[in-house]
Protein backbone atom coordinates (compact mmCIF):
# COMPACT_ATOMS: atom_id res chain seq x y z
CA UNK A 1 0.00 0.00 0.00
CA UNK A 2 2.98 2.29 -0.34
CA UNK A 3 2.83 5.15 2.13
CA UNK A 4 -0.94 5.10 2.59
CA UNK A 5 -2.19 4.37 6.09
CA UNK A 6 -5.98 4.47 5.68
CA UNK A 7 -9.06 6.30 4.51
CA UNK A 8 -10.12 8.59 7.32
CA UNK A 9 -13.43 10.39 7.83
CA UNK A 10 -12.91 14.14 7.90
CA UNK A 11 -15.98 14.48 10.08
CA UNK A 12 -15.81 11.78 12.75
CA UNK A 13 -12.26 10.45 12.35
CA UNK A 14 -13.26 6.82 11.69
CA UNK A 15 -10.57 4.94 9.74
CA UNK A 16 -10.94 2.31 7.03
CA UNK A 17 -8.60 0.31 4.81
CA UNK A 18 -7.83 2.20 1.56
CA UNK A 19 -10.38 0.46 -0.62
CA UNK A 20 -13.30 1.59 -2.80
CA UNK A 21 -15.23 3.27 0.01
CA UNK A 22 -16.90 6.52 -1.01
CA UNK A 23 -18.06 8.05 2.27
CA UNK A 24 -17.79 7.18 5.95
CA UNK A 25 -19.98 4.20 6.84
CA UNK A 26 -20.72 5.66 10.25
CA UNK A 27 -21.72 9.25 9.48
CA UNK A 28 -21.57 9.44 5.64
CA UNK A 29 -18.97 12.19 5.98
CA UNK A 30 -16.22 12.70 3.39
CA UNK A 31 -13.17 10.44 3.49
CA UNK A 32 -9.60 11.50 2.95
CA UNK A 33 -6.41 9.53 2.45
CA UNK A 34 -4.15 9.36 5.50
CA UNK A 35 -0.44 8.59 5.18
CA UNK A 36 2.31 7.00 7.27
CA UNK A 37 4.16 10.22 7.84
CA UNK A 38 7.26 8.67 9.40
CA UNK A 39 7.87 6.69 6.22
CA UNK A 40 7.00 9.63 3.97
CA UNK A 41 9.42 11.86 5.86
CA UNK A 42 12.32 9.55 4.95
CA UNK A 43 11.61 9.45 1.21
CA UNK A 44 10.01 12.82 0.49
CA UNK A 45 13.11 14.99 0.61
CA UNK A 46 13.96 18.11 -1.36
CA UNK A 47 16.95 16.43 -3.00
CA UNK A 48 14.99 13.38 -4.10
CA UNK A 49 12.09 15.44 -5.47
CA UNK A 50 14.43 17.67 -7.46
CA UNK A 51 15.80 14.65 -9.36
CA UNK A 52 12.40 13.42 -10.53
CA UNK A 53 10.56 14.02 -13.85
CA UNK A 54 8.55 17.21 -14.21
CA UNK A 55 5.03 15.99 -13.63
CA UNK A 56 2.74 15.55 -10.67
CA UNK A 57 4.15 12.13 -9.76
CA UNK A 58 7.28 13.81 -8.42
CA UNK A 59 5.32 13.98 -5.13
CA UNK A 60 4.52 10.27 -5.29
CA UNK A 61 4.84 9.50 -1.57
CA UNK A 62 1.84 11.74 -0.89
CA UNK A 63 -0.28 10.35 -3.75
CA UNK A 64 -2.30 7.17 -3.16
CA UNK A 65 -1.37 5.10 -6.23
CA UNK A 66 0.11 1.69 -5.44
CA UNK A 67 0.64 0.20 -8.91
CA UNK A 68 3.10 2.16 -11.06
CA UNK A 69 1.70 0.48 -14.16
CA UNK A 70 -1.75 1.91 -13.49
CA UNK A 71 -0.64 5.49 -14.09
CA UNK A 72 -1.74 7.15 -17.31
CA UNK A 73 1.08 9.03 -18.93
CA UNK A 74 -0.39 12.36 -20.03
CA UNK A 75 2.11 14.16 -17.77
CA UNK A 76 -0.13 16.70 -16.07
CA UNK A 77 1.28 19.11 -13.55
CA UNK A 78 4.55 20.89 -12.95
CA UNK A 79 3.05 23.93 -14.62
CA UNK A 80 4.75 27.35 -14.51
CA UNK A 81 4.59 29.56 -11.45
CA UNK A 82 4.83 32.92 -13.16
CA UNK A 83 6.05 36.00 -11.33
CA UNK A 84 3.37 38.56 -12.21
CA UNK A 85 5.20 41.86 -11.78
CA UNK A 86 3.11 43.73 -14.35
CA UNK A 87 -0.15 42.78 -12.68
CA UNK A 88 1.34 43.41 -9.24
CA UNK A 89 2.38 46.87 -10.33
CA UNK A 90 -1.07 47.56 -11.76
CA UNK A 91 -2.73 46.51 -8.51
CA UNK A 92 -0.12 48.01 -6.18
CA UNK A 93 1.19 44.78 -4.71
CA UNK A 94 4.77 43.90 -3.77
CA UNK A 95 4.98 40.25 -4.83
CA UNK A 96 2.46 38.33 -6.91
CA UNK A 97 2.66 34.93 -8.56
CA UNK A 98 0.30 33.17 -10.96
CA UNK A 99 0.18 29.38 -10.82
CA UNK A 100 -0.65 28.81 -14.46
CA UNK A 101 -2.66 25.62 -14.83
CA UNK A 102 -4.05 26.72 -18.17
CA UNK A 103 -1.20 24.74 -19.75
CA UNK A 104 -2.12 21.28 -18.51
CA UNK A 105 -2.84 18.54 -21.11
CA UNK A 106 -6.53 19.47 -21.37
CA UNK A 107 -6.00 23.08 -20.30
CA UNK A 108 -7.23 22.95 -16.72
CA UNK A 109 -6.10 21.76 -13.29
CA UNK A 110 -8.56 18.88 -13.51
CA UNK A 111 -5.91 16.78 -15.21
CA UNK A 112 -4.30 16.46 -11.79
CA UNK A 113 -7.10 14.81 -9.77
CA UNK A 114 -8.14 12.78 -12.80
CA UNK A 115 -4.64 11.30 -13.11
CA UNK A 116 -4.93 9.83 -9.63
CA UNK A 117 -8.56 8.71 -10.01
CA UNK A 118 -7.97 6.96 -13.34
CA UNK A 119 -4.95 5.18 -11.90
CA UNK A 120 -7.17 3.87 -9.10
CA UNK A 121 -9.82 2.79 -11.61
CA UNK A 122 -7.12 0.80 -13.43
CA UNK A 123 -5.77 -0.69 -10.20
CA UNK A 124 -9.25 -1.94 -9.43
CA UNK A 125 -9.96 -3.11 -12.97
CA UNK A 126 -13.08 -1.00 -13.42
CA UNK A 127 -14.80 -1.42 -16.80
CA UNK A 128 -15.68 2.21 -17.43
CA UNK A 129 -15.14 5.66 -15.98
CA UNK A 130 -16.93 8.97 -16.02
CA UNK A 131 -17.78 12.09 -14.09
CA UNK A 132 -20.30 14.83 -13.49
CA UNK A 133 -18.84 18.04 -14.79
CA UNK A 134 -19.24 21.73 -15.40
CA UNK A 135 -16.91 21.27 -18.37
CA UNK A 136 -13.25 21.11 -17.45
CA UNK A 137 -13.47 17.81 -15.65
CA UNK A 138 -15.32 16.28 -18.61
CA UNK A 139 -12.39 16.96 -20.95
CA UNK A 140 -9.79 15.83 -18.41
CA UNK A 141 -11.59 12.57 -17.66
CA UNK A 142 -12.25 11.87 -21.34
CA UNK A 143 -8.61 12.42 -22.33
CA UNK A 144 -7.21 10.23 -19.55
CA UNK A 145 -9.80 7.55 -20.30
CA UNK A 146 -8.77 7.62 -23.97
CA UNK A 147 -5.14 7.02 -23.03
CA UNK A 148 -6.20 4.30 -20.57
CA UNK A 149 -8.43 2.72 -23.24
CA UNK A 150 -11.46 2.88 -20.97
CA UNK A 151 -15.01 3.82 -22.03
CA UNK A 152 -15.96 7.20 -20.58
CA UNK A 153 -19.33 8.78 -19.76
CA UNK A 154 -19.55 12.42 -18.79
CA UNK A 155 -22.68 14.04 -17.37
CA UNK A 156 -22.92 17.78 -17.94
CA UNK A 157 -25.58 20.47 -18.06
CA UNK A 158 -26.81 20.59 -21.68
CA UNK A 159 -26.51 24.38 -21.56
CA UNK A 160 -22.70 24.38 -21.28
CA UNK A 161 -20.48 26.46 -23.50
CA UNK A 162 -20.21 24.67 -26.88
CA UNK A 163 -16.45 24.04 -26.65
CA UNK A 164 -16.85 22.30 -23.32
CA UNK A 165 -19.48 19.95 -24.74
CA UNK A 166 -17.36 19.24 -27.81
CA UNK A 167 -14.00 18.49 -26.19
CA UNK A 168 -14.92 15.26 -24.37
CA UNK A 169 -16.54 13.95 -27.56
CA UNK A 170 -13.34 14.61 -29.49
CA UNK A 171 -11.53 12.47 -26.91
CA UNK A 172 -14.04 9.70 -27.59
CA UNK A 173 -16.27 9.99 -24.54
CA UNK A 174 -20.04 9.76 -24.47
CA UNK A 175 -21.55 13.04 -23.31
CA UNK A 176 -24.82 12.80 -21.41
CA UNK A 177 -26.24 16.34 -21.77
CA UNK A 178 -28.63 16.71 -18.85
CA UNK A 179 -31.48 19.16 -19.26
CA UNK A 180 -30.90 20.97 -15.97
CA UNK A 181 -28.24 22.42 -13.71
CA UNK A 182 -24.93 20.90 -12.70
CA UNK A 183 -26.59 19.62 -9.55
CA UNK A 184 -29.19 17.79 -11.66
CA UNK A 185 -26.42 16.24 -13.75
CA UNK A 186 -24.55 15.25 -10.61
CA UNK A 187 -27.62 13.57 -9.10
CA UNK A 188 -28.30 11.37 -12.11
CA UNK A 189 -24.58 10.64 -12.46
CA UNK A 190 -24.48 9.32 -8.88
CA UNK A 191 -27.40 7.02 -9.67
CA UNK A 192 -25.90 5.86 -12.98
CA UNK A 193 -22.48 5.12 -11.48
CA UNK A 194 -24.07 3.31 -8.56
CA UNK A 195 -26.26 1.12 -10.76
CA UNK A 196 -23.52 0.18 -13.20
CA UNK A 197 -20.47 -0.09 -10.97
CA UNK A 198 -18.52 2.39 -13.07
CA UNK A 199 -15.80 4.58 -11.59
CA UNK A 200 -16.89 8.21 -11.62
CA UNK A 201 -13.84 10.20 -10.71
CA UNK A 202 -15.45 12.93 -8.60
CA UNK A 203 -18.16 10.70 -7.16
CA UNK A 204 -17.19 7.18 -6.14
CA UNK A 205 -13.42 7.71 -6.62
CA UNK A 206 -13.57 11.05 -4.84
CA UNK A 207 -11.26 10.40 -1.84
CA UNK A 208 -8.44 9.49 -4.23
CA UNK A 209 -9.35 12.05 -6.87
CA UNK A 210 -9.02 14.85 -4.31
CA UNK A 211 -5.40 13.91 -3.67
CA UNK A 212 -4.28 14.94 -7.15
CA UNK A 213 -5.22 18.57 -6.54
CA UNK A 214 -2.72 18.79 -3.69
CA UNK A 215 0.06 18.88 -6.26
CA UNK A 216 -0.86 22.47 -7.14
CA UNK A 217 0.32 23.45 -3.68
CA UNK A 218 3.31 21.12 -3.60
CA UNK A 219 4.55 22.65 -6.86
CA UNK A 220 3.95 26.19 -5.64
CA UNK A 221 5.98 25.40 -2.52
CA UNK A 222 8.82 23.89 -4.56
CA UNK A 223 8.81 26.67 -7.16
CA UNK A 224 8.99 29.34 -4.46
CA UNK A 225 12.23 27.75 -3.31
CA UNK A 226 10.51 25.42 -0.84
CA UNK A 227 8.60 28.23 0.81
CA UNK A 228 4.90 28.84 1.25
CA UNK A 229 3.29 32.15 0.27
CA UNK A 230 1.39 34.37 2.71
CA UNK A 231 -1.87 34.08 0.75
CA UNK A 232 -3.28 31.61 -1.78
CA UNK A 233 -6.37 32.70 -3.70
CA UNK A 234 -8.31 29.76 -5.11
CA UNK A 235 -11.55 29.51 -7.06
CA UNK A 236 -14.36 27.61 -5.33
CA UNK A 237 -16.70 25.28 -7.19
CA UNK A 238 -17.38 22.38 -4.87
CA UNK A 239 -14.72 23.66 -2.45
CA UNK A 240 -12.61 20.54 -2.95
CA UNK A 241 -9.62 22.38 -4.43
CA UNK A 242 -9.33 24.59 -1.37
CA UNK A 243 -9.63 21.63 1.00
CA UNK A 244 -6.95 19.82 -1.01
CA UNK A 245 -4.61 22.82 -0.87
CA UNK A 246 -5.10 22.92 2.89
CA UNK A 247 -4.43 19.19 3.17
CA UNK A 248 -1.20 19.61 1.20
CA UNK A 249 -0.02 22.31 3.60
CA UNK A 250 -0.92 20.19 6.62
CA UNK A 251 1.01 17.25 5.15
CA UNK A 252 4.12 19.34 4.44
CA UNK A 253 4.00 20.42 8.07
CA UNK A 254 3.45 16.85 9.28
CA UNK A 255 6.61 15.65 7.54
CA UNK A 256 8.65 18.58 8.78
CA UNK A 257 9.13 20.37 5.45
CA UNK A 258 7.37 23.53 6.57
CA UNK A 259 7.63 25.01 10.05
CA UNK A 260 5.69 27.77 11.69
CA UNK A 261 4.33 29.27 8.50
CA UNK A 262 0.68 30.22 8.28
CA UNK A 263 -0.70 30.64 4.80
CA UNK A 264 -4.06 32.35 4.52
CA UNK A 265 -6.47 30.54 2.19
CA UNK A 266 -8.87 32.76 0.29
CA UNK A 267 -11.78 31.37 -1.74
CA UNK A 268 -13.63 33.09 -4.53
CA UNK A 269 -16.87 32.44 -6.40
CA UNK A 270 -18.97 34.45 -8.81
CA UNK A 271 -21.70 36.53 -7.20
CA UNK A 272 -24.28 34.69 -9.34
CA UNK A 273 -23.44 31.39 -7.65
CA UNK A 274 -21.83 31.92 -4.28
CA UNK A 275 -23.15 29.28 -1.87
CA UNK A 276 -19.81 28.95 -0.06
CA UNK A 277 -19.14 32.69 0.17
CA UNK A 278 -22.61 33.35 1.57
CA UNK A 279 -22.07 30.52 4.04
CA UNK A 280 -18.73 32.03 5.06
CA UNK A 281 -20.50 35.32 5.75
CA UNK A 282 -23.22 33.65 7.84
CA UNK A 283 -23.05 32.96 11.56
CA UNK A 284 -23.54 29.21 11.26
CA UNK A 285 -20.89 28.74 8.56
CA UNK A 286 -23.15 26.50 6.47
CA UNK A 287 -23.20 26.90 2.68
CA UNK A 288 -26.30 28.52 1.24
CA UNK A 289 -27.36 26.31 -1.71
CA UNK A 290 -28.24 28.08 -4.95
CA UNK A 291 -30.96 26.44 -6.97
CA UNK A 292 -30.42 28.33 -10.24
CA UNK A 293 -26.82 29.51 -10.69
CA UNK A 294 -26.56 32.56 -12.92
CA UNK A 295 -23.00 33.46 -13.89
CA UNK A 296 -20.55 33.39 -16.78
CA UNK A 297 -18.18 31.42 -14.54
CA UNK A 298 -19.71 28.11 -15.57
CA UNK A 299 -16.91 26.00 -14.16
CA UNK A 300 -17.78 27.29 -10.68
CA UNK A 301 -21.55 27.04 -11.08
CA UNK A 302 -22.20 24.36 -8.47
CA UNK A 303 -25.25 25.28 -6.42
CA UNK A 304 -24.85 22.62 -3.75
CA UNK A 305 -21.11 22.29 -3.11
CA UNK A 306 -20.15 19.08 -1.32
CA UNK A 307 -17.00 20.43 0.29
CA UNK A 308 -18.41 23.87 1.03
CA UNK A 309 -18.70 23.46 4.78
CA UNK A 310 -15.13 22.24 5.12
CA UNK A 311 -13.86 25.02 2.87
CA UNK A 312 -15.57 27.60 5.10
CA UNK A 313 -14.02 26.10 8.22
CA UNK A 314 -10.57 26.15 6.61
CA UNK A 315 -10.87 29.76 5.44
CA UNK A 316 -11.84 30.76 8.96
CA UNK A 317 -9.10 28.69 10.59
CA UNK A 318 -6.36 30.09 8.35
CA UNK A 319 -7.62 33.69 8.76
CA UNK A 320 -8.48 33.82 5.09
CA UNK A 321 -11.78 35.00 3.69
CA UNK A 322 -14.31 34.37 0.93
CA UNK A 323 -15.35 36.80 -1.77
CA UNK A 324 -17.75 36.91 -4.70
CA UNK A 325 -17.06 39.43 -7.47
CA UNK A 326 -19.70 40.19 -10.09
CA UNK A 327 -19.60 38.92 -13.68
CA UNK A 328 -18.49 42.33 -15.06
CA UNK A 329 -15.66 42.41 -12.51
CA UNK A 330 -14.64 38.89 -13.50
CA UNK A 331 -14.55 39.78 -17.21
CA UNK A 332 -12.50 42.89 -16.53
CA UNK A 333 -10.13 40.82 -14.40
CA UNK A 334 -9.70 38.21 -17.16
CA UNK A 335 -8.74 40.98 -19.55
CA UNK A 336 -6.42 42.56 -17.00
CA UNK A 337 -4.56 39.28 -16.44
CA UNK A 338 -4.27 38.67 -20.17
CA UNK A 339 -3.02 42.14 -21.08
CA UNK A 340 -0.58 42.44 -18.20
CA UNK A 341 0.79 38.90 -17.95
CA UNK A 342 -0.09 37.18 -21.23
CA UNK A 343 -2.18 34.56 -19.47
CA UNK A 344 -5.68 34.01 -20.78
CA UNK A 345 -7.73 32.45 -18.00
CA UNK A 346 -11.31 31.28 -18.08
CA UNK A 347 -13.73 33.20 -15.83
CA UNK A 348 -12.75 31.08 -12.80
CA UNK A 349 -9.25 32.52 -13.10
CA UNK A 350 -10.77 35.96 -13.48
CA UNK A 351 -12.50 35.55 -10.13
CA UNK A 352 -9.13 35.15 -8.38
CA UNK A 353 -7.78 38.36 -9.94
CA UNK A 354 -11.01 40.23 -9.25
CA UNK A 355 -11.00 39.12 -5.62
CA UNK A 356 -7.36 40.15 -5.21
CA UNK A 357 -8.18 43.58 -6.61
CA UNK A 358 -11.15 44.00 -4.28
CA UNK A 359 -9.22 42.75 -1.27
CA UNK A 360 -6.31 45.13 -1.87
CA UNK A 361 -8.77 48.00 -2.08
CA UNK A 362 -10.47 47.22 1.22
CA UNK A 363 -7.41 45.93 3.06
CA UNK A 364 -8.33 42.28 3.40
CA UNK A 365 -5.01 41.55 1.66
CA UNK A 366 -2.01 43.65 2.58
CA UNK A 367 0.17 45.07 -0.18
CA UNK A 368 3.25 43.53 1.44
CA UNK A 369 1.88 39.99 1.46
CA UNK A 370 3.30 37.43 -0.95
CA UNK A 371 0.27 36.27 -2.92
CA UNK A 372 -0.27 33.29 -5.25
CA UNK A 373 -3.30 33.13 -7.54
CA UNK A 374 -4.39 29.68 -8.69
CA UNK A 375 -5.39 30.13 -12.33
CA UNK A 376 -7.04 26.81 -12.98
CA UNK A 377 -8.48 26.87 -16.49
CA UNK A 378 -7.78 28.22 -19.95
CA UNK A 379 -9.85 31.04 -21.42
CA UNK A 380 -9.85 29.45 -24.86
CA UNK A 381 -12.46 27.02 -23.58
CA UNK A 382 -14.91 29.84 -22.96
CA UNK A 383 -14.07 32.56 -25.50
CA UNK A 384 -17.60 33.80 -26.07
CA UNK A 385 -17.64 35.28 -22.57
CA UNK A 386 -15.11 37.86 -23.67
CA UNK A 387 -15.98 38.39 -27.33
CA UNK A 388 -19.01 40.42 -26.35
CA UNK A 389 -16.82 42.84 -24.40
CA UNK A 390 -14.96 43.99 -27.52
CA UNK A 391 -16.42 46.11 -30.34
CA UNK A 392 -16.70 44.27 -33.68
CA UNK A 393 -13.74 44.54 -36.07
CA UNK A 394 -14.21 46.39 -39.36
CA UNK A 395 -12.09 45.01 -42.23
CA UNK A 396 -9.24 47.23 -43.46
CA UNK A 397 -8.45 47.45 -47.17
CA UNK A 398 -5.10 45.78 -48.02
CA UNK A 399 -3.14 48.94 -48.80
CA UNK A 400 -0.84 51.26 -46.88
CA UNK A 401 -3.15 54.26 -46.94
CA UNK A 402 -6.01 52.30 -45.43
CA UNK A 403 -3.72 50.90 -42.73
CA UNK A 404 -2.46 54.43 -41.95
CA UNK A 405 -6.04 55.64 -41.75
CA UNK A 406 -6.96 52.71 -39.48
CA UNK A 407 -4.01 53.23 -37.15
CA UNK A 408 -4.52 57.00 -37.17
CA UNK A 409 -2.14 58.75 -34.88
CA UNK A 410 -0.86 55.61 -33.15
CA UNK A 411 2.94 55.68 -32.95
CA UNK A 412 5.07 53.00 -31.38
CA UNK A 413 8.84 53.08 -31.35
Amino acid sequence: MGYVRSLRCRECGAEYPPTRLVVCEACFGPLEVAYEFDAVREAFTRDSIARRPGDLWRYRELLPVFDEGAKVDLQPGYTPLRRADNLASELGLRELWVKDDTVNPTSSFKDRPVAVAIAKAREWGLEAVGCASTGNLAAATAAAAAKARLPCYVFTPASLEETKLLLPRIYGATVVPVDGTYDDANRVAILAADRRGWGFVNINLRPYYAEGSKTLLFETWEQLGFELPDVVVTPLGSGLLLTSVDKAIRELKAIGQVNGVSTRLVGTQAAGCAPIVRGFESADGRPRPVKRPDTIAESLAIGDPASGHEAIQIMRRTRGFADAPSDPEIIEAQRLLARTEGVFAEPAGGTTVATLKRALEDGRIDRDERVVLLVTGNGLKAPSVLSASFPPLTPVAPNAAAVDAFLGGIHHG
Partner: protein
Amino acid sequence: MVRLVVASPIAVATRGEREIDIEYEGTLGGLFDAVAERYGKEFRQRIFDGEGGLKRFVNVYVDGEDARYLKGLETPVTRDATVDLLPAIAGG
Protein backbone atom coordinates in the same frame (compact mmCIF):
# COMPACT_ATOMS: atom_id res chain seq x y z
CA MET B 1 -46.11 2.49 -4.84
CA VAL B 2 -43.47 4.95 -3.72
CA ARG B 3 -40.03 3.93 -4.92
CA LEU B 4 -37.17 4.76 -2.57
CA VAL B 5 -33.78 4.60 -4.30
CA VAL B 6 -30.88 4.38 -1.86
CA ALA B 7 -27.35 4.93 -3.17
CA SER B 8 -25.03 2.14 -2.13
CA PRO B 9 -22.97 4.19 0.38
CA ILE B 10 -26.21 4.95 2.25
CA ALA B 11 -27.64 1.45 1.96
CA VAL B 12 -26.00 0.38 5.23
CA ALA B 13 -29.12 2.04 6.69
CA THR B 14 -31.46 -0.27 4.75
CA ARG B 15 -29.66 -3.59 5.22
CA GLY B 16 -28.07 -3.25 1.80
CA GLU B 17 -31.36 -2.81 -0.08
CA ARG B 18 -31.06 -0.10 -2.72
CA GLU B 19 -34.50 -0.06 -4.37
CA ILE B 20 -37.40 -0.22 -1.99
CA ASP B 21 -41.09 -0.12 -2.95
CA ILE B 22 -43.46 0.94 -0.25
CA GLU B 23 -47.21 1.69 -0.12
CA TYR B 24 -47.36 5.26 1.10
CA GLU B 25 -48.83 8.69 0.50
CA GLY B 26 -48.22 11.72 2.70
CA THR B 27 -45.12 13.69 3.63
CA LEU B 28 -41.43 12.94 3.36
CA GLY B 29 -41.14 12.74 7.13
CA GLY B 30 -44.02 10.26 7.21
CA LEU B 31 -42.37 8.18 4.51
CA PHE B 32 -39.20 7.94 6.60
CA ASP B 33 -41.32 6.84 9.58
CA ALA B 34 -42.74 4.06 7.42
CA VAL B 35 -39.27 3.06 6.21
CA ALA B 36 -37.99 3.08 9.81
CA GLU B 37 -40.77 0.64 10.75
CA ARG B 38 -39.34 -1.76 8.20
CA TYR B 39 -35.63 -1.29 8.96
CA GLY B 40 -35.72 -0.42 12.64
CA LYS B 41 -34.08 2.41 14.52
CA GLU B 42 -30.80 1.71 12.70
CA PHE B 43 -32.30 3.54 9.72
CA ARG B 44 -33.33 6.52 11.80
CA GLN B 45 -29.98 6.74 13.59
CA ARG B 46 -28.04 6.70 10.37
CA ILE B 47 -30.16 9.14 8.38
CA PHE B 48 -31.11 11.70 11.02
CA ASP B 49 -28.95 13.89 13.22
CA GLY B 50 -29.60 14.26 16.94
CA GLU B 51 -32.05 17.12 16.42
CA GLY B 52 -34.55 15.42 14.15
CA GLY B 53 -33.15 16.82 10.91
CA LEU B 54 -31.48 14.91 8.11
CA LYS B 55 -27.74 14.46 8.45
CA ARG B 56 -25.67 17.05 6.64
CA PHE B 57 -24.16 14.46 4.34
CA VAL B 58 -27.45 12.97 3.15
CA ASN B 59 -29.39 14.54 0.30
CA VAL B 60 -33.02 13.67 -0.41
CA TYR B 61 -34.76 14.24 -3.73
CA VAL B 62 -38.49 13.90 -4.33
CA ASP B 63 -39.20 13.28 -8.00
CA GLY B 64 -35.81 14.78 -8.80
CA GLU B 65 -36.22 17.93 -6.71
CA ASP B 66 -33.95 18.55 -3.74
CA ALA B 67 -36.20 18.43 -0.66
CA ARG B 68 -34.39 21.45 0.80
CA TYR B 69 -35.82 23.55 -2.03
CA LEU B 70 -39.29 22.13 -1.36
CA LYS B 71 -40.69 21.81 2.15
CA GLY B 72 -38.03 19.63 3.75
CA LEU B 73 -39.57 16.81 5.74
CA GLU B 74 -43.02 18.35 5.09
CA THR B 75 -42.63 17.87 1.32
CA PRO B 76 -45.66 16.01 -0.09
CA VAL B 77 -44.98 12.50 -1.38
CA THR B 78 -47.53 11.15 -3.84
CA ARG B 79 -48.34 7.45 -4.03
CA ASP B 80 -46.23 6.96 -7.18
CA ALA B 81 -43.34 9.25 -6.25
CA THR B 82 -39.66 8.40 -6.57
CA VAL B 83 -37.50 9.42 -3.64
CA ASP B 84 -33.71 9.32 -3.94
CA LEU B 85 -31.48 9.10 -0.89
CA LEU B 86 -27.96 10.05 -1.97
CA PRO B 87 -24.66 10.96 -0.33
CA ALA B 88 -23.83 14.65 -0.48
CA ILE B 89 -21.14 14.48 -3.14
CA ALA B 90 -21.17 17.25 -5.69
CA GLY B 91 -18.58 18.85 -7.83
CA GLY B 92 -14.90 18.39 -8.48
